[in-house]
């Protein structure tokens, strides 16, 4: 699904009328199957942007098109159909605590299942091999029948990401997928997500605080600051100065290593730096 935003403005749902808009004048074009990472300091409006793209929040001004059409002009049933084709993974994994991992993961497939099959799946999960496959990509297949509240925070986050693999969506909107993962698992998850998105030609928009991960795995990086797009460049063109400008008043969110000028230009792979953002 391709995305077109033009002059978009959106407010935070609980913001007062005097507060500045969460997103101002956003213009963006994404083709089918393109993967993009959005980076920026906290409060820049990354989550609001994802909410707007997921049709969870109405923009106040500007144009918004998904697959060439304005979703807010659709009828209820057409909008529901469109929603089945997108997937939003919030930062806090939306998993009911006492549900089992297999049911939580299979819930991602609900838009494509009939009502009878969905209800039957509650008694006996209908597609356990698919759930196993999806969890296997994130190295969690041994937790298939465990309860969600018995998992650690990082494991829960990976289950939330595994749901995306089962959904019939052609647009993935992922909010901070790596915030609770250690570097090795973060790499594994990112590789799995980007690889599968590539394979299935899925458009993916991910917000990240881990700038190095973004630079490594994504070809296109968008920088967001105070609700406006600061840059929209291929990852090779994102320099240290641009990053420093982006995180101007939030240097603590960038590790100090990233701000230092590169001493060795020949170094092919930059050493991964753990970003402590919160």
């Amino acid at each position, binding site marked *: 699904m391709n995305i077109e935003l033009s002059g978009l403005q959106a407010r935070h749902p609980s913001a007062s009328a005097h507060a500045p808009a969460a997103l101002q004048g956003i213009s963006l074009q994404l083709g089918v199957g393109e993967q993009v990472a959005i980076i920026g300091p906290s409060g820049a409006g990354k989550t609001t942007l994802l909410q707007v793209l997921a049709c969870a929040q109405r923009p106040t001004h500007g144009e918004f098109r998904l697959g060439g059409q304005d979703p807010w002009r659709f009828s209820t049933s057409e909008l529901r159909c469109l929603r089945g084709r997108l997937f939003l993974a919030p930062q806090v994994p939306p998993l009911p605590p006492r549900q089992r991992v297999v049911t939580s993961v299979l819930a991602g497939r609900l838009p494509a299942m009939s009502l009878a099959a969905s209800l039957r799946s509650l008694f006996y*999960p209908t597609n356990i091999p698919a759930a196993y496959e999806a969890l296997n990509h994130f190295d969690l297949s041994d937790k298939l029948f465990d309860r969600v509240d018995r998992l650690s925070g990082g494991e829960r986050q990976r289950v939330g990401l595994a749901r995306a693999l089962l959904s019939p969506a052609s647009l993935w909107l992922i909010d901070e997928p790596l915030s609770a993962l250690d570097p090795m698992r973060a790499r594994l998850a990112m590789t799995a997500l980007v690889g599968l998105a590539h394979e299935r030609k899925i458009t993916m928009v991910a917000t990240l605080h881990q700038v190095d991960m973004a630079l490594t795995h994504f070809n296109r990086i968008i920088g967001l600051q105070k609700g406006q797009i600061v840059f929209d460049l291929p990852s090779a063109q994102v320099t240290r100065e641009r990053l420093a400008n982006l995180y101007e008043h939030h240097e603590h969110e960038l590790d100090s290593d990233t701000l230092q000028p590169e001493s060795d230009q020949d170094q092919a792979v930059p050493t991964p730096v753990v970003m402590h953002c919160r």
Partner: protein
Amino acid sequence: MSTPNSSQANLVFGGKFRDPAFSSRLFWLSVAILLLWPLTVATEFRPWVLWEPDNRKVTRDFLASFWPLVHDAEFMRLVARETWRTVAMATAGVTLALVLAIPMCLMAARVLSLSALSGRMDRWPALLRWCVRATLIVLRSIPELVWALVFVRVVGLGPTAGVLAIALTYGGMLGKVYAEILESGESHSTHTLMRNGSGRLQALVYALLPSHAAELASYTVYRWECAIRSSVVLGFVGAGGLGQQLDNSMKMFNGGEVATLLLVFIVLVAMADAVSTWLRRALS
């Protein structure tokens, strides 16, 4: 979805993809269904009986007699008087219940034990507490209707039997819950006061009550609302109030009066509920 490779193929057939919780769910479901059958037999549960022509006619006639509601001045004066009697019975009952519950909860609360300050409670204080708790549980377990039946034999018909019945049952309920509330939360401040020589009542007033007063008051108000409903029930065995009027009207198949009384009662409970919610919110 990619097909599982050969090393995983045996997993499919090896039962790794079997849901382990299914057999236990099936077991509990069959147990529940098997238990349901004797229950329906024991309670002679035959809902289709309600649909038999005779019963339908009786029901229809009774429901039809609800309209028009009886609302002449004399009946409404009677209803107002009986409503006040119901509320008065509940209030008096809960007040007497407090007189009973407060000393008993103080005796039952382990947090006020002097001997428990230094290790285990001594034998006799523990026994006393156990006895008081058992008394409270017994008082709480006997339905107030049973007490009312007994008291009606002793003191005769009238609100006295109702007030006594509510006092005893609610005394048990309030006492037990008060003791539980006092024991919940941290007891550090209470024990410190007692260790430094203050008396038990002083420790109660200076340490326990300030932290738990809101919860105690809130529960009491909730029980007062329940007592209003209980006093209507007690009216059926002769304790007066709205319940007795309702019983009389039903025996005479006077649907209009029954409907008015039911409506008045629903409004009364709704008002008591509103007062109770407002109070509880104001307290917390």
